Every structure is written in structure tokens, then in C-alpha cells.
């Protein structure tokens, strides 16, 4: 009897399978449109939902409250949707300190204030000790699309440039470090709202689509684009911004930074002519000073993501399958 495994939650191919299993019973669904970060209903209204189960709840650079707003707001932002409203549901374990909950709510409220997002609906559930690991938060963000046309992977074309809005893998590395008792001095989660940095890009005619590289990381987003549209993507290893602390954590635990979650980094596809301009606009934001062109959309190797390695080799970047476990030997 097939069971749900942690691998189904890791953001890669098993997660796609799980989503497919769920969608298959609902009428009129297709996986590709569901892989975009938010739905566009009535043409111009963006809607997205995400549950936040991060452990530990406090991590370097943020907490579950901040993450719960950033995560959903970013899913709107990357589709050119101005985040306006949040609905938030809190499932707490009995025994959780009220002060801890309040602290997370303050973090959430701070992001809402920064982005001028209004909390409009909420729910609270308390479950018996042991029925939830402390606190899970689900947020649904709603906003209005401010671009003429809807951004989405259907707009990708060979020749398009891929930009990483900042250095990758910081959220996943920070969480991994906390879990495995590593103590990185200068490493914080990149958890941050993307809207302020991405908004200027929306004026670019050549802007194709964007994705926030959360669970599964940059590598998974690239695979979803390549497979979803049956195009090739070539990334250039030495152009991908990775901070030394992130790389060190990957070295120590045997992780691949391409698959580490980001919570404040978007993958952006632009027409080649607009790449420089996009980079310039991004770098005006203090969150995106590390922005870099990291690859190109190709007609070659359709459906596949390639990495041009530092020694000049080529290899596939495949969608990850299981949970990323530390590798020792």
C-alpha cells in the first residue's frame, strides 16, 4: 500500500506526483498551470495558498510568521500580482506559549505593514499535545495583477536569459544548519518580501515569467520550466551566485545548493535584450545586489536543464526525488 513519505514533501518529482494524485480527482485541472506560483482568477486576481511547517520555527534571518507572509506574498509578486490581502489560519498545539505565538504574529504583521497587505480573514485551531509540532500556519494571499499580460512559463522562448535575483540556497542552508547543529556566522535565511524588488521589472516588455525558488530550490524551478514547456535550459555554474557559508554547509552535509530552498530569491526569465536592464533594476534593491544572469533558454536538449560546469563540462540538472539527507560517506 503506497504511503506518503517525506520525499513527497521535498519539492521535487515525488511532490509533483503527489500533486498530480490530488489534482487528478478534481475536474478541469492541469498540472502545468498548477505549477505556477499563483492562480489568476477572473483574469486579473491572483490567489495562492501555502502551509508553513518550518522547523525550527525560529531560524537565522526570520521565523515562521515572517515566512508565512513572505511565502504567499512572493507567490503573487512573481506573477506580477500586487499582494493586497491575506487570509491566515493558525493551527497551534496545546501548550504553545502565547508569547511565542504573539512574536510570530508580530513578525507577520510587520511584513504586512511593509507591503501594505491587509489581513482580512483568519482561523485558529488548537489541537491536542502531539497532534501538531508546535505551530503550523497557512496563508492565502490575494492581489491584483498589474501587468497587461499574465506572466507565466508559457511565455518562455529560446534565447531568453535566466536571472537569479540574489544568491541561492540561503533559506535551506540556514534551516539545514539549525537542524544539524552547524553554526554559520554570516548565514541567514533570505526570507524577505520580493515585491519591492520585482515591481520595477514589470515595466519591461521582455519580462517572460518569474518563480520564487522555494522548496526544491532553483534546480527544481528550472526543471519545471524546462519540462512544463519542453524547452532546454542551460545554466552556467560559475555564474550562479552562492555565498561561501551556503557552499560550506553543502560541502559539510553533502547537499547540492541548486536544490536548497530560497525564500527571497526569484528565478526570472527575460528576453535577451532586456537582461542587462533587468539586472540593473534588480540591483537597485538592497536584497538583490547579488543578482546575476545564470543561464539561457535553448532549443537544444528540450525538456532538460543542463549545467555547464566550472571545468567546462556539461551535465543534467534533474528534478530531485527524495528528501535531501546529509551525506557522510
Amino acid at each position, binding site marked *: 500500500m503506497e504511503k506518503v513519505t517525506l520525499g513527497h514533501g521535498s519539492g521535487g*518529482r515525488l511532490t509533483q506526483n503527489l500533486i498530480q494524485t490530488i489534482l487528478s480527482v478534481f475536474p478541469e485541472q492541469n498540472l502545468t498551470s498548477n505549477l505556477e506560483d499563483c492562480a489568476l482568477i477572473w483574469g486579473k486576481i491572483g490567489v495562492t495558498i501555502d502551509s508553513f511547517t518550518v522547523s525550527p520555527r525560529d531560524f537565522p534571518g526570520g521565523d515562521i510568521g515572517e515566512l508565512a507572509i513572505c511565502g504567499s506574498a512572493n507567490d503573487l509578486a512573481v506573477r506580477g500580482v500586487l499582494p493586497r490581502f491575506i487570509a491566515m489560519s493558525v493551527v497551534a498545539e496545546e501548550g504553545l506559549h502565547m508569547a511565542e505565538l504573539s512574536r510570530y504574529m508580530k513578525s507577520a504583521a510587520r511584513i504586512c505593514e511593509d507591503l501594505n497587505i491587509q489581513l482580512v480573514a483568519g482561523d485558529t485551531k488548537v489541537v491536542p499535545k502531539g497532534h501538531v509540532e508546535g505551530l503550523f500556519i497557512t496563508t492565502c494571499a490575494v492581489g491584483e495583477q498589474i501587468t497587461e499580460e499574465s506572466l507565466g512559463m508559457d511565455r518562455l522562448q529560446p534565447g531568453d536569459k535566466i536571472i537569479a535575483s540574489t544568491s541561492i540556497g540561503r533559506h535551506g542552508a540556514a534551516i539545514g544548519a539549525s537542524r544539524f547543529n552547524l553554526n554559520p556566522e554570516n548565514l541567514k535565511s533570505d526570507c524577505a518580501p520580493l515585491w519591492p524588488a520585482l515591481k520595477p521589472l514589470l515595466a519591461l516588455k521582455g519580462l517572460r515569467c518569474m518563480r520564487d525558488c522555494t522548496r526544491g530550490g532553483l534546480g527544481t524551478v528550472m526543471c519545471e520550466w524546462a519540462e512544463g514547456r519542453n524547452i532546454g535550459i542551460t545554466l552556467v555554474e560559475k555564474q550562479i551566485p552562492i555565498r561561501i557559508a551556503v557552499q560550506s554547509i553543502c560541502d559539510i552535509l553533502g547537499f547540492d545548493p541548486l536544490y536548497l530552498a530560497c525564500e527571497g530569491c526569484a528565478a526570472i526569465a527575460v528576453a535577451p535584450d532586456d537582461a542587462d536592464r533587468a539586472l540593473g533594476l534588480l540591483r537597485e534593491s538592497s536584497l538583490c545586489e547579488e543578482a546575476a544572469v545564470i543561464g539561457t533558454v535553448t532549443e537544444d536538449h528540450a525538456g532538460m536543464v543542463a549545467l555547464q560546469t566550472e571545468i567546462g563540462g*556539461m551535465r543534467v540538472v534533474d528534478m530531485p526525488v527524495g528528501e535531501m539527507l546529509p551525506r557522510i560517506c
Partner: protein
Amino acid sequence: MSPFDREPGQIKASYTAHHVIEAIGQRLTKPLTFMEVCGTHTVSIFRSGIRSVLPPDLSLISGPGCPVCVTDQGEIDCAINLLDMPDITMATYGDMLRVPGTRGSLSERKSEGKDVRLITSAAQALSIAEDNPEREIVFLAVGFETTAPATAATILEAAEKNITNFSILVYHKQTPPVLEQLVKDPDLKINGFILPGHVSVILGHKAYRFLADHYGVPCAIAGFEPMDILLAIADLVFQHSNGESALHSLYPRAVRPEGNQKALDLISKVFTPCSARWRGLGLIPSSGYALKEEFAAFDALLRFGITIPTPKPPAGCCCGDVLAGHITPLKCPLFAAACTPMTPVGPCMVSSEGSCSAYYKYNRGGASPWKRSPSATEAADD
């Protein structure tokens, strides 16, 4: 230091790699097959796309270098049997969790509520024992000579601290005996060994000299950066072109010729060599470690009165042939069909250092266009 800088002192690969690659191409005069016998080399070769830059006549095959893969199915079964006993907490390294035994994996048991802890250091297993006096902590210890000394140190510490709820399933293995079995294998033509840098840190040079001296196979002890591996390949090609067969140390920044005597002493203080069963390769004399009698109290097999069964491997799985270097994963009839990372049949597809996993992941199940070297291997196989 800018945030993009890597480890200081590393080779900036892209500045020099093309010179090495060019030299390899120019000096290669006949088809050659080299074997790397370290899973970390395997991963590094795939991740850096080394095969895609080598001439088609140069083949790399992977040996039994992933300790997760070579752990016998019976050893996994034994661990799972143990976990079904009351009050057992099992601590082990990451990839071990997913390796299938006959009745599923540790990870599946964990998902059913069994207490399986993922550790990144042997010392953590002992800490868990100290923190949970009411439970029995069993450390499932895998790994080669690099890893065994840490287990030895932990056992000595447990003995010193008189910790009584701690025991070990010693599944450690030794590399020289299995290399000897490979080099003697008449079905296998290996023209050079890329030797494991970190095992060599412990063993030094002499443990591997027999490969070059007695069997006439060129050897290079290599580090793990892509450039380290390219250099080792160049060295082996040059040895052939120069008519040499020597053991070359290309990782002198870490490897001392005499090895790490303190680690070797620890190993021999705690362990005694024994024959060990390798997945797919069978029983190899003197290739394992047994606890010395004075540490019998820490032997989980004795403590819980269990033995290691010898189950049948999964039908159709060719992990044995893959680990022995007889075939590449591409030749396994299950590869990328019944056996994928989502539906792994053998450990070589489960472990992130397994050859089958690497072949699948970094070549998209053989479908990638950048695989000159592996297809050359296939040609050589036929």
C-alpha cells in the same frame, strides 16, 4: 572576502581545466578504462561533468566505493529486525535510512514511528545514549577506513564512561581486499585506479602499492575537487603513455605517505579484521572489522542475540555487477525502467553516491546528450 569566494586555496578550476583536458586528449593513444573506487569521486565526476570533456576512448567506471551500496542486504535486514525489538533507538548516517532490505528500509520504519536518528558524527550516537538512559541506542556504523576510527574512538569513550545502553552494528569495511578482488577479476580490464583520497589519509601509500607493484596497474591517489580528478586521469593516461605503472600521490596536501598512525592504532585497538559480506560481491576475507573480545559488550549482535541473515537479493537487480565494475548501470535491464530514483530496486539507485543514482540523475536516465565517456564504456562492454 567577497560572498562568492569559495574555499581559499582551492584550484580555480576553469582557469586551468582546459589545459589538463587538452593534455589528456593529446596523450591518449589507445582506449583506456579507469576505475574510481570512492563514491565521493563518483559524485564529483558526475556533478562536474568530467565524462563530457574526456575523449570517447577514455572510460571511467565506478567501483564499490559507496559504503551504503556495499552494505549487504542481510545487514540491513538485521538492523530492521533489531528495530522491531522494544526500546531500541537506532542512530545512523543519512543515506543508510533509505536502503532497502528485504522488508523495507529504516526510513519506512521511522515513518511508522520507530525511533531512528539521523546523525552526522559517531560521537552524536553516544550522546543520544547518554541523554536517553531508558533506551537502548544502537549505532549502525558503516563506512571504510576513513570512518572506522571515529567509531573506534566512540567505543573507547563509551567504555571509559561506562555507558551501558550503547551498542554497535559494525558494518565497516576495508578497501584493499576488495580492490585486490577487482584487480584479479579476469572479466574486468582496469587500466588504472583513481584511489580514494580520504581512505589514503588513514592508510597512507603502502596499502595500495600492491596494485601497481604486483598487478602492474597505474594508480593515482586523488583529492575530490573536479581538478583533482582531472589531474588523476591525466596522470594515469601519462603513465600509460610513458609505460609506467606506479602509485602516484596527487593529494599530498592531505595524504602522508605513512598514513594516520593514531587512527590506525585506534582501529587495531578496537577492531580485528574479519571476513565481510559485500552486497553483490559476496564474502571477502579480511575485508571487515569485528569488535575485539574486550569490547564484546558493545556488539549489538551479541547483546541482542541476533545474527545477520543471508536473504535473496531483489529479482533482476544487477547491483552486484555494477559494484564489481562488470557493467555500467545503463546495462542493467531495470535501469530507468523498473528502477528509478522514485522506485529504486537496489541500493545503487538509492544512495546519493550510488552509481545507478548518479547515472540516472546526472544523465537523466541515460537520455542526456553529454555522456561521451559512458557510451564509450558501453562500447567497450559489448
